């Protein structure tokens, strides 16, 4: 390559190719094991928090030594009469169990003493 070529090369280098836009951000190469590990840690943390909350709740709300939760206000008959709820009443206040069962049956079972209740109509037939 002679001087002439060298000078022409320099002339060409006075022209700069336009710089392209910066590369968009990329969050590292794909490493599936990292995502799996992160998911596992997250599940463990959630589990630990849930466990802690469940342990703390009876101690915070209930009388000492009693692990049962206070009864929530009755909102619907099915909830009021659930097996868990009745078991709770039986543990906390056995004397009130009869009343609770009676209330549950009144709320849940069909009434037969109303004028047009299903049982009343069937009895007539």
């Amino acid at each position, binding site marked *: *390559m002679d001087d*002439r*070529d060298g*000078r*022409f*090369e320099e*002339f*060409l*280098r*006075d*022209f*700069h*190719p*336009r*710089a*392209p*836009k910066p*590369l*968009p951000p*990329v969050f*590292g*190469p*794909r*490493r599936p094991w990292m995502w799996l590990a992160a998911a596992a840690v997250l599940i463990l943390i959630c589990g630990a928090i849930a466990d802690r909350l469940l342990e703390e709740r009876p101690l915070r709300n209930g009388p000492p030594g009693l692990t049962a939760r206070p009864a929530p206000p009755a909102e619907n008959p099915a909830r009021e009469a659930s097996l868990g709820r009745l078991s709770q009443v039986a543990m906390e206040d056995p004397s009130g169990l009869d009343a609770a069962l009676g209330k549950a049956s009144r709320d849940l079972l069909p009434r037969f003493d109303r004028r047009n209740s299903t049982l009343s109509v069937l009895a007539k037939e």
Partner: protein
Amino acid sequence: MAGHRIAFDEVGRLYGQHGPALVLYARSFLWDMGVAEDVVHGVFLKLLRGQVAMPDAPVAYLYRAVRNTALNARRDESRKASFNERDCCFESASGNREAALALESALRDLPCEQREVLIMRVWSQMTLEEVATATGVPLDTAASRYRYGLAKLRERLKPFHKE
């Protein structure tokens, strides 16, 4: 050729050093500057995401990958596409826009093998040995392609380059 994953910093360095020349190279196959940039971005993003293993000669790989991707993109380019002067991919240090457009046009008219040797040598600052390795030809072949290409450009750019 043993492939390996390449560090982020290394990809950034390659992009800074060879990105403009690679866009110029991609543009020599394509009409649209935006498509040429997308082609180069695509090649670098594959490296950053670890979707391809980096060969031992990264610059040679980059030129090959850009060429293949640009040729694929050219098939999808509109037949109506034409050279847009506003998209000139050169900036002239002396502000001579006419010469910049003439250079781009002359470069585009060179045979592909001469064009790639010129771009690698002049704008990627590679030695002729590196160009020969990157293009997979003997050193003499790379050198003669360079000389022929340079002579043709000199002829076309005579009005702008007084010797």
